[in-house]
C-alpha cells in the first residue's frame, strides 16, 4: 500500500536518524507483536469456522465500550508522543506532565474494560463458556496486562523525572518506554475491529 503519511510527514522534523529507544526494546516489541499475530490469526480462523457461535458472542459485547477503549488508548498514545516532543526540547516538567496525562487517559481504558468484564462475568460468560469467550477474555485480558505494565512503566518515569538530570541521562530509556506504549496502542488498533466490528 502506498504510504499514506508520505505527503504529511515532513522529513525536516527529523530529530534523530537512529531507531528510537534501545535496540533491546525493539526485539521485545517484535516478539510481542508476533505472539499477538498468532492470536489474531487463530481468532480469525476460529471465527470463520464457528461463525454462528462467534457472531452470537459478539452480540453480547458493548461496542460503545470498545469505542471508548480505542479512543482512550489512541489519545494516551498521542499524549505520550507530545511528552516525547517536550523531552526532546529538554522540557522535563512538560514531559512529566504529559506522561501523567497519558496515565490518566489510559485509566479510562482500564475502567471501561473492567466494566465490560464485570457485565459479561455477571451474565455468566467466562473463559470456559465457549471458544468465542475463551478468545475474547484471553486476548483482551493479555492486552489488558500489557496496558497495566505500560502504565506502571510510565508512572516510574514520572517519578524518576523529578530528578533534574534524569532526562539528559536517560533519554533513550524514556524513548523505549514510549515505544512500548505505542505498541500497546497498535495492538489494540488491530484487536478492536476483529472483536467489535467484523
Amino acid at each position: 500500500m502506498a504510504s499514506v503519511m508520505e505527503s504529511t510527514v515532513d522529513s525536516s522534523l527529523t530529530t534523530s536518524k537512529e531507531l528510537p529507544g534501545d535496540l533491546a526494546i525493539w526485539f521485545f516489541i517484535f516478539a510481542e507483536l508476533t505472539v499477538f499475530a498468532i492470536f489474531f490469526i487463530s481468532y480469525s480462523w476460529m471465527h470463520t469456522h464457528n461463525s454462528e457461535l462467534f457472531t452470537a458472542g459478539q452480540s453480547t459485547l458493548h461496542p460503545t465500550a470498545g469505542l471508548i477503549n480505542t479512543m482512550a488508548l489512541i489519545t494516551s498514545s498521542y499524549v505520550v508522543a507530545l511528552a516525547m516532543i517536550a523531552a526532546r526540547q529538554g522540557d522535563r516538567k512538560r514531559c512529566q506532565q504529559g506522561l501523567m496525562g497519558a496515565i490518566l487517559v489510559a485509566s479510562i481504558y482500564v475502567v471501561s474494560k473492567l466494566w465490560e468484564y464485570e457485565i459479561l462475568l455477571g451474565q455468566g460468560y467466562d473463559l470456559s463458556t465457549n471458544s468465542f469467550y475463551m478468545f475474547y477474555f484471553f486476548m483482551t485480558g493479555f492486552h489488558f496486562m500489557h496496558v497495566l505494565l505500560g502504565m506502571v512503566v510510565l508512572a516510574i518515569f514520572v517519578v524518576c523525572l523529578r530528578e533534574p538530570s534524569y532526562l539528559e541521562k536517560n533519554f533513550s530509556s524514556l524513548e523505549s518506554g514510549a515505544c512500548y506504549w505505542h505498541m500497546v496502542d497498535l495492538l489494540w488498533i488491530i484487536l478492536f475491529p476483529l472483536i467489535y466490528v467484523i
Partner: protein
Amino acid sequence: MNVSDDDNREVPKKGLFKKEVVRDTISWLVLMGLTAVAIVVGQQSIELHWVIGVALLITVIKGQIVSDVFMGLWHVPKRWRRLMLSYVILVPGITGSIFLYFT
C-alpha cells in the same frame, strides 16, 4: 543506556517542535475519525465483505500512522520501518483473507 548517544543527539530548532506538535495532533484527529468510521461501517447493514474490507483497510492506515508518526519510525533506517509496516499490513491482510475466503 549509552550517555554518549544522547550527547550526540541532534536537537532541532524550536519551530520544528511546533510542527511536530501540529503533525501529531493532525494524526491523532485522523485516528479518532477513522475509529468512528470503523464503528459506523460495522453497524451498517451492508455486505459483510465490504465491512471486512473497509474495517481492515482502516486498521492498516491507523497502524501506519501510529508506527510512522507516534513511534517515529518515519525517519529511521528503512529496514526497521519496513519491518513494522509489513506487520501492520500483513497481519490485517492475513486475517482479512481468512475472513473473505472462508465466509
